[in-house]
C-alpha cells in the first residue's frame, strides 16, 4: 500500500535519475544547465523562480528562458518579484503560461502588455506573506530555482546577507518532495555558515557571474528637499513623539529617509532618544546609520540586505541580526511577520490617495503589484499584545465606546503634488481604470483607507482615527490636500472645525515653524557624510559616489 501515498517522493527520485548522467554528484556544469532544466522540469509544472526584491537567480532565469518551448511549456510560475527581462521572456517564448506573483516593478509595463494580449494567465497578485503562505497550501512548487552565495561539495548552501525569500521557498519545495536547484557564486571547501542544509536541496550550478543584487534601499540625502524635511519634522513631533512609537517599519523613499536623518538632530533636540524608534523591521538603510551611531536604535531585523552595508552590519552585531560567522542574516517571511504583528507603526509614501484614504501606486499601462507594503500597512486583527502606542491609537479609534483592541498606526506621507505637478489627492484612483483595462476582479489598492490612521502632507496632519463619519474623513483628507483640486473643494468651515478638534493639525498647531525646516537639519547631506558617519564601514555602490 506504499505507492499511492508517496507518489511525490517517487517522482522526485525519477526526476533526479533523469539528470544523474548530466551532473557530477550535486554539481551541474554551467554549460549543461539547460539540458538539466529541460530534463528535470515537466510541462505543466509549478516552478518557483527566485526573483526577490533584491537578489535574483539571474543565471537560472536566463537559462530557463532559453529552454525549448517544445520540451517545456505551460509552466505555472510562482515567484514574488518579476524584476529581470528573462522573467517575462519565459512567457513571451511560450515556456510558461500562468503566473502568481507579488511585485513586478521593473517589468510592470511588459507584464501589462502580455495580459492585454492574453498571452499570460495571472492567477492572483499577492502580498509577500500571502504568496509565501500559499507556497505551503495550494501553490506548492514542483521545482524551485534559487540563488545562494556559495555551496560546498556536499551541497550545503550559504546564502550571504541577502537571505530574503530563500528559506520560505526551499522549505515549501524540499519538504513536499519538489526539486531544489541553486545557482551559486562560488564553490568552496568550507562554508562560513550553513543556511540551507544539503538534504534540503538537490543540485547546484556555479553561475558564470555573481547573482544580481539591486541596491534598492539607498537614498542619496543630497536629493531630500526642504519640504520633505518639514514633513519629517511634523511626523516626528506630531506622531512619533505623541504616540511614543518604539517599534516600526519605514517604507522606501525620500520622505522616510528624511525622518531617519532627522533622528540624531531634530528628534534629539526634542529629547526623544530612547523614547522613539528603538526597534525596527527594516532593511539596512544607509540613511539609518547616523541614528544608529547616535544611539537611537536598539535592534533592526531585515527582509534582505543592502549593497555596501555588509561591513557596517557585521560591525554592529548588537543591532543587526548576524550569524555565528559575523555576516548578516535576513529573512523576508519573518521580517514581514514582524512588521505585521510586532510593529506599532508603518509609514510610507504613495502615488495617489482618494477621498476615503485608499492609496495606490498603480499607474495606467503597468501591473506593478504589491510587494510587502500591504502587510506592513495594515492593522493586524490577530494581534493581542498591548503597547502604549497601539492602545492610544485604539482608544482614539474607539471614541467613547469600550476598548476591545488597540490599533496599528498606518501613516501615509505625501506631498500634495508629485512630479510634473500631478496631484497626490484624487477623486478616483487610477487603480479603478487599471482594473477595467486588465480585467481584474478588484482594483489594485496598496493600503486600504480603513487601515490608514494618519495622512501627513506639507499642509498638515490628518488623524483619520478621530473621524466619526465618512463625511468627516473626506473633509479631513481634503483639509490637508493643499491646492490640489481635491484640496480646493474642501468645506472650509468643516475643516476649521476639524482643526479645532485636533483632527487636522497644521505645523503651527504642533509648534513647528516652517522656516526652521531646512536641509541643514539633516544628519547627513550626502552619501559621503553617511560613509563618514559609519566610520568608513559603509561602502556605497559606484553610482552613488562622486569620489
Amino acid at each position: 500500500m506504499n505507492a499511492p501515498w508517496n507518489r511525490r517522493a517517487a517522482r522526485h527520485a525519477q526526476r533526479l535519475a533523469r539528470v544523474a548522467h548530466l551532473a557530477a554528484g550535486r554539481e551541474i556544469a554551467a554549460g549543461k544547465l539547460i539540458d538539466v532544466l529541460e530534463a528535470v522540469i515537466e510541462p505543466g509544472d509549478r516552478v518557483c523562480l527566485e526573483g526577490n526584491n533584491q537578489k535574483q537567480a539571474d543565471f537560472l532565469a536566463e537559462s530557463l528562458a532559453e529552454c525549448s518551448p517544445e520540451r517545456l511549456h505551460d509552466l505555472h510560475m510562482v515567484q514574488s518579484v518579476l524584476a529581470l527581462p528573462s522573467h517575462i521572456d519565459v512567457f513571451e517564448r511560450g515556456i510558461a503560461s500562468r503566473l502568481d506573483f507579488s511585485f513586478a516593478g521593473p517589468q510592470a509595463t511588459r507584464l501589462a502588455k502580455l495580459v492585454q494580449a492574453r498571452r499570460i494567465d495571472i492567477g492572483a497578485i499577492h502580498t509577500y506573506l500571502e504568496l509565501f503562505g500559499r507556497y505551503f497550501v495550494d501553490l506548492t512548487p514542483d521545482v524551485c530555482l534559487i540563488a545562494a552565495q556559495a555551496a560546498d561539495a556536499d551541497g550545503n548552501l550559504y546564502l550571504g546577507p541577502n537571505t530574503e525569500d530563500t528559506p520560505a521557498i526551499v522549505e515549501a519545495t524540499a519538504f513536499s518532495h519538489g526539486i531544489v536547484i541553486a545557482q551559486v557564486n562560488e564553490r568552496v571547501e568550507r562554508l562560513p555558515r550553513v543556511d540551507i542544509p544539503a538534504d534540503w536541496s538537490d543540485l547546484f550550478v556555479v553561475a558564470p557571474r555573481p547573482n544580481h543584487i539591486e541596491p534598492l534601499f539607498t537614498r542619496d540625502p543630497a536629493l531630500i528637499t526642504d519640504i520633505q524635511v518639514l514633513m519629517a519634522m511634523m511626523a516626528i513631533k506630531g506622531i512619533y513623539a505623541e504616540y511614543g512609537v518604539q517599534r516600526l517599519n519605514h517604507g522606501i523613499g525620500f520622505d522616510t529617509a528624511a525622518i531617519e536623518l532627522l533622528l540624531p538632530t531634530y528628534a534629539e533636540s526634542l529629547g526623544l532618544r530612547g523614547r522613539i524608534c528603538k526597534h525596527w523591521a527594516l532593511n539596512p538603510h544607509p540613511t539609518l546609520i547616523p541614528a544608529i551611531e547616535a544611539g537611537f536604535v536598539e535592534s533592526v531585523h531585515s527582509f534582505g540586505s543592502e549593497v555596501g552595508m555588509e561591513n557596517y552590519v557585521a560591525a554592529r552585531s548588537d543591532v543587526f541580526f548576524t550569524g555565528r560567522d559575523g555576516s548578516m542574516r535576513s529573512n523576508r517571511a519573518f521580517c514581514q511577520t514582524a512588521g505585521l504583528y510586532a510593529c506599532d507603526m508603518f509609514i510610507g509614501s504613495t502615488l495617489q490617495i482618494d477621498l476615503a484614504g485608499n492609496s495606490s501606486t498603480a499607474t495606467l499601462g503597468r501591473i506593478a503589484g504589491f510587494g510587502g507594503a500591504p502587510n506592513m500597512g495594515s492593522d493586524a486583527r490577530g494581534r493581542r499584545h498591548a503597547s502604549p502606542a497601539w492602545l492610544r491609537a485604539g482608544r482614539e479609534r474607539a471614541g467613547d465606546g469600550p476598548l476591545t483592541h488597540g490599533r496599528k498606526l498606518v501613516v501615509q506621507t505625501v506631498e500634495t503634488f508629485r512630479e510634473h505637478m500631478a496631484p497626490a489627492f484624487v477623486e478616483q484612483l487610477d487603480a479603478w481604470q487599471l482594473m477595467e483595462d486588465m480585467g481584474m476582479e478588484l482594483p489594485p489598492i496598496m493600503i486600504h483607507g480603513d487601515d490608514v490612521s494618519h495622512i501627513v502632507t506639507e499642509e498638515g496632519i490628518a488623524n483619520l482615527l478621530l473621524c466619526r463619519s465618512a463625511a468627516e474623513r473626506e473633509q479631513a483628507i481634503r483639509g490637508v490636500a493643499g491646492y490640489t483640486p481635491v484640496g480646493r473643494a474642501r468645506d472650509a468651515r468643516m475643516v476649521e472645525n476639524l482643526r479645532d478638534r485636533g483632527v487636522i493639525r497644521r505645523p503651527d498647531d504642533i509648534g513647528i515653524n516652517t522656516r526652521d525646516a531646512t536641509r541643514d537639519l539633516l544628519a547627513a547631506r550626502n552619501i559621503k557624510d553617511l560613509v563618514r558617519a559609519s566610520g568608513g564601514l559603509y561602502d556605497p555602490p559606484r553610482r552613488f559616489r562622486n569620489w
Partner: protein
Amino acid sequence: MSAHAITRRSWFEADARTRIHGLVDAGSFSELCGPHERLTSPHLAVLDLPVAFDDGVVVGEATLDGERILVGAQQGEFNGGSVGEIHGAKLRGLLDRARDTRPAAVLLAIDSGGVRLHEANAGLIAISELMRALLGARAAGVPVYGLIGGSCGAFGGMGIVARLCDGLIMSEEGRLGLSGPEVIETVKGVDEFDSKDRALVWRITGGKIRRTLGEATLLVDDDLGAFRGGAKALLARGAPLRGLAALDADQAALAARAQRHADARDGLDIWRALGLPDAERLAMLDADAFNRIIDRAETA
C-alpha cells in the same frame, strides 16, 4: 530648538545671499544694484526666457572682522551662474569700486559655468571687462579672493577669472576648470573624458586636486563658517603685488609640473606620483586631515 540641532550650514546648498551673510559680519552687508532696481537681462527678455531681478549675481559692501570689504556672489541656480551683460557689469562695477575706494579686499563667491551663451558677444565682452577690472583692482593694491564651493563650480571665463585672483578658497565639492567635463566629452569623445563618471570629474576638477596642485590656496569643509574662516585667514595673510621674477618662477614651476604629470589621466595618478600615503583614501578625508597631508608633502 533648531539652533542646537544644526551642526553645519552647507555652502554648497546655500544661495548667493545666504553665502554672503554667512561670510561677512552679521548685519554688515548692504547690497548695491539690488533686486528692487530690477536690473534684468535685456537679451533673455528678447528670447522670452525668464529673467531674475538681480540677473543672478549679488554685489555689495560689508565688513569682515570689522574691516571694510566688497563682496560679490553668483547664483548658480539662475542659468548656471552664467555671466551675461548685466551680471558682468555688476561684477565689473564692484571691482572698479574697489580700485577707487580701496577696501581691505574683494571676495568673489564664484558659482558659474562661464559666459551666458544666450547673450553671445555681450556676455563675452562682459567677462573680458570683468577680467580687466579685476586686474585693475589688484594693480591698485586691493587683493581679490575667489571662493568656490557651489554646484556650478568655476568654469569657462569664470575659471580664468578665478585664476586671476590673489588666492582661492575651495571646498572639495567645488570644481575649477576651463572647459567643463560635458564640453570636453562632446568635443573629444567619451574616451577622453567621461562626464558621467562623477568620481573622475571630481578627481580631476574638484577642490582636493586643485589644492594638491596649488591652484586653490586653501581647502575648507563645505560649511559657511569654514569659508568665513578661510576668508579671514587670507585677509590676514595679505597679498603684496609680486614682481616679474616671481611670475617667471611661477611659470617655470608650471612648466615643470606639466612635464612631471604629462602622463596623468586622473587625479589619483597625481596623488600616487607625489607619493601621498593611501591615495585612494584621500577623497574620504575632511579638509583638516587632507590639508595636513598636503602641507607635509609640500614641506618635504
